[in-house]
């Protein structure tokens, strides 16, 4: 970087007619601090033009430049023999065996979704799909991780239903099955929803292509949709706090998604890559042509020259500034092999799309922009992409949060005896209740490869022509991260891994989305840093390296930050599809066993939120070695085909987990008779959310062997009861307490919760 600083300097560029003069206010409006602006001037060796300032502001925004997170991200483990592509490309890539590779990544679209939930979510899915197919992989699955405020607000219902239909309509139209995700409703996300979308793509190893522009003179082509005035400065916008009074006019134009064009672009891109007519391809995502072109040049160590008048536009009279920063969707930048421009055009034309040569690769290390032959921007490429100043800040835990964590939960531990009413409340909480209302709006079976649909612990996609499958899950309990960031982040990684082993997959690698508040505040930076450290420790312990991710900071409304939410997207490999295990009980008469032990904390639990509106207390501790042992034990049981079902114990505690196993997808209900004797308060035994636990069921003939394997791995295990016919009801007895109810009563609470809220009450528009 410093090398490039020294060798490549900007040539003089006269100001463009009609462009505003650069004042300190204009600089501030572009989200650059005075120091950062000085750095721009040093890099340039002169004052930037207005167009150049726009380019810097996008590339040095938090979104593109990772100013506040880059140094922390360097702490994460990224290597393993099976990692083919680590962080830094459009998506991470791992080997999945039999000649196949898996590309996967997660992306956030929080701010756009807060402004326009439907389009925000839809374009979020569109963006992550492009990140995958620009690697040469065919997208095979989508997951979505969502957070909203409580559903009792009309505005929240509006955001929730808009986001779900946006995610659904886009993925459905392109034809990528949704295989899972998560949703949490908590006042901590009121006003600032989280919308993260993850995509998985499969390819043969030899089809991998990266986004690099090299080869002096190679033509640069814009393909796909035309450039309009949408989302100008989205990247900068995504790096600022929202405030209630941000009026319409100050908001950037909403980007509208066109999934139909995306589908064509997907097919055309894969065909382009296979044709050999191109050497590089990249999505024009955040910061549009600016970031795609300069990053391709930066990675290739070369330069680019782009002629604005050659860019196909949707509206007349667009300035270079607007064209460079437009975030119109469904566009790609392609580096063609010299002489292959017509072949590129032919392929695009078959898919009824446009392609235009808009510039070329150069060898002078510059990001140069022309307007009708006149230079309007001339910037050294490497400092632009790599030279963004990065910060390491001082983090301090918030006293207020510490006090919440250390709060005495004594009075909440008192209830005992028949706790069925609390249990029904918990099962009917939208956080625990069935999420069918969501995923029944998502096509989950298109491509005919979905072996486990949403509703299981992890989604599973088989790989046609092999005996293998890949599994994926997203997880994070933001309340736990809020109360204790480091353990909370470790817990998110651990839960993801548990979800994978429950379906029979070996946890292999993660992508992650760091959704946090304003990192310039010391206590937020503390959360960010601790969470990254927690993620690092867990990933090291489980040998699941980080191959990529996304950072979304400044998630605040009127100064109130969301819960720190480092969403973990983990993928795993199943070598033999016949071993895929479901999370619902299979047969009356099977034994129910609990693996793992209750560590006794009630802090951060859904029980406290539902019964007392409380997010407080000491969250459950986590033992990474124990988690690892548990994973190994479950995998071995799976391998020996001992399991009828396996389900990770998480939100809602043991009672809710058993109910979920019994209720399944609602089509074949079963009953439960179980008892557990722990030296704990009954509410903790029933509803505590200790990590490291899995509920399994098995043929009674296999129970001894299951227990033996658990012992072998030093995992606590015990038989706690049996699966019964539904007619015998549901009961779970603990020391000093019990929950028991007819199964159809549980089914109503569980399945009707979200539909009855969403169908009964109108949403309130924007």
């Amino acid at each position, binding site marked *: 970087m410093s090398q490039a600083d020294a060798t490549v300097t900007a040539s003089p560029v006269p100001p463009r007619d009609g462009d505003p003069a650069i004042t300190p206010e204009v600089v501030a409006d572009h989200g650059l601090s005075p120091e950062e602006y000085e750095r721009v001037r040093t890099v340039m060796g002169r004052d930037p033009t207005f167009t150049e300032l726009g380019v810097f502001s996008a590339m040095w925004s938090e979104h593109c430049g990772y100013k506040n997170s880059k140094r922390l991200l360097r702490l994460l483990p990224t290597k393993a023999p099976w990692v083919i592509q680590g962080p830094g490309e459009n998506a991470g890539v791992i080997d999945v065996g039999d000649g196949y590779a898996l590309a996967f990544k997660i992306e956030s679209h929080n701010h756009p979704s807060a402004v326009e939930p439907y389009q925000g979510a839809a374009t979020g899915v569109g963006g992550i799909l492009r990140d995958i197919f620009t690697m040469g992989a065919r997208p095979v699955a989508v997951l979505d991780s969502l957070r909203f405020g409580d559903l009792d607000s009309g505005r929240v219902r509006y955001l929730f239903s808009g986001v779900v239909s946006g995610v659904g309509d886009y993925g459905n139209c392109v034809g990528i099955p949704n295989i899972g995700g998560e949703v949490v409703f908590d006042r901590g996300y009121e006003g600032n929803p989280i919308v993260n979308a993850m995509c998985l793509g499969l390819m043969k190893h030899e089809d991998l292509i990266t986004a690099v522009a090299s080869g002096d003179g190679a033509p640069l082509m814009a393909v796909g949709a035309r450039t309009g005035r949408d989302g100008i400065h989205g990247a900068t916008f995504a790096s600022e706090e929202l405030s209630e009074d941000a009026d319409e006019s100050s908001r950037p134009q909403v980007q509208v998604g066109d999934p139909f064009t995306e589908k064509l672009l997907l097919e055309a891109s894969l065909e382009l890559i296979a044709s050999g007519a191109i050497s590089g391809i990249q999505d024009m995502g955040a910061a549009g042509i600016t970031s795609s072109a300069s990053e391709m040049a930066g990675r290739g160590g070369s330069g680019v020259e782009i002629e604005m008048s050659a860019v196909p536009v949707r509206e007349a009279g667009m300035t270079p500034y607007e064209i460079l920063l437009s975030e119109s969707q469904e566009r790609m930048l392609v580096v063609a092999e010299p002489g292959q421009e017509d072949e590129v055009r032919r392929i695009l034309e078959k898919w009824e799309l446009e392609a235009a040569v808009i510039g070329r690769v150069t060898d002078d290390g510059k990001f140069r922009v022309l307007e009708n032959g006149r230079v309007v921007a001339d910037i050294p490429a490497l400092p632009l992409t790599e030279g963004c100043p990065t910060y390491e800040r001082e983090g301090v835990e918030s006293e207020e949060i510490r006090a919440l964590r250390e709060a005495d939960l004594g009075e909440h531990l008192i209830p005992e005896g028949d706790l069925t009413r609390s249990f029904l409340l918990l099962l009917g909480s939208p956080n625990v209740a069935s999420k*069918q209302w969501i995923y029944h709006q998502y096509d989950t079976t298109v491509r005919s490869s979905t072996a486990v*649909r949403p509703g299981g612990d992890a989604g599973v996609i088989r790989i046609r022509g092999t005996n293998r499958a890949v599994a994926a899950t997203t997880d994070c309990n933001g309340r736990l991260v809020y109360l204790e960031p480091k353990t909370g982040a470790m817990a998110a990684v651990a839960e993801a891994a548990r979800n994978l082993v429950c379906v029979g997959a070996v946890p292999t690698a993660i992508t992650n989305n760091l959704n946090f508040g304003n990192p310039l505040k010391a206590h937020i930076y503390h959360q960010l840093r601790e969470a990254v450290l927690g993620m690092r420790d867990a990933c090291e312990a489980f040998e699941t390296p980080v191959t990529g991710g996304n950072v979304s900071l400044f998630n605040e409304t009127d100064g109130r930050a969301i819960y720190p939410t480092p969403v973990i997207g983990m993928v795993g490999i199943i070598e033999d599809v016949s071993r895929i295990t479901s999370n619902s009980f299979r047969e009356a008469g099977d034994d129910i066993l609990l693996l793992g032990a209750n560590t006794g904390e009630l802090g951060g639990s859904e029980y406290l939120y539902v019964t007392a509106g409380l997010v407080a207390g000491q969250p459950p501790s986590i033992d990474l070695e124990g988690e690892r042992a548990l994973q190994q034990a479950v995998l071995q049981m799976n391998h020996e085909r001992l399991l009828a079902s396996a389900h990770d114990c998480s939100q809602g505690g043991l009672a809710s987990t058993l109910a979920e196993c019994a209720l399944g997808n609602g089509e074949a209900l079963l009953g439960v008779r179980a008892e557990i004797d722990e030296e704990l308060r009954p509410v903790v035994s029933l509803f505590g959310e200790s990590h490291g636990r899995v509920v399994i069921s098995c043929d009674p003939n296999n129970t001894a062997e299951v227990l033996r394997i658990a012992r072998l791995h030093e995992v606590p295990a015990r038989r706690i009861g049996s699966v019964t016919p539904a007619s015998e009801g549901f009961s779970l007895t603990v020391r000093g307490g019990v929950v028991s109810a007819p199964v159809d009563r549980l089914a109503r609470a569980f399945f009707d919760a979200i539909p009855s809220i969403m169908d009964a009450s109108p949403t309130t528009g924007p």
Partner: protein
Amino acid sequence: MKVAVVTFPGSNCDYDLYKAVQQVGAEVEFVWHRERGLQRFEAVMLPGGFSYGDYLRAGAIARMSPVMEDVVAFAAAGGPVLGICNGFQILCEAGLLPGALMRNDVLRFRSHDVLLRVERDDTLFTGDYEKGQILRIPIAHGEGNFEADEETLRALEGDGRVVFRYVDANGEATEASNPNGSWHNIAGITNEAGNVLGMMPHPERAMEALLGSTDGVGLFTSLVASLSTTAGGSA
């Protein structure tokens, strides 16, 4: 037997359908919507998806494609034509099947397994099923609400052209088992001649136990069987 799977910009179940046909041992080829000539095929299939994004109305723009003229001719000559989901919508728009598929009455996309009752086991497409048999097959659509005018509806029922109906586990066509508001729980119909079948559910996604159901296989084996008995006879 050689089957054409016609693809339009935005088709996305084309590959699934291709694989399903292959699985029952028939030959299959994709035909892009701009290509002409279907004479070399013995059956034509229109896959699901979102041709032209379902913009305007599902199937409305696709039915203007050049290949549709040939599909119409192929059907007129008695050749078997199967439209699944978006394919069904295109067939209605093209007038090869009566009625229209309107927006689901719940106004939401619906994607899950449904149960279908086989109403006819004497069509080209259902010989390997039994009348009254209940099939588990996924649906995934936003516009599957079958409507037509009174007269057409009466004719459909009167002539026994309803081939599949949404039912519950007891085989009853109840309101609760109707995912989209279709008149009389209609999930699939044929034309008068019986050689064109349109259905909203996706049999091509119900071909393997691993994926949850094998109940779709019968549709494809039925077609192969009926074509081989009339070998050389059709279109």
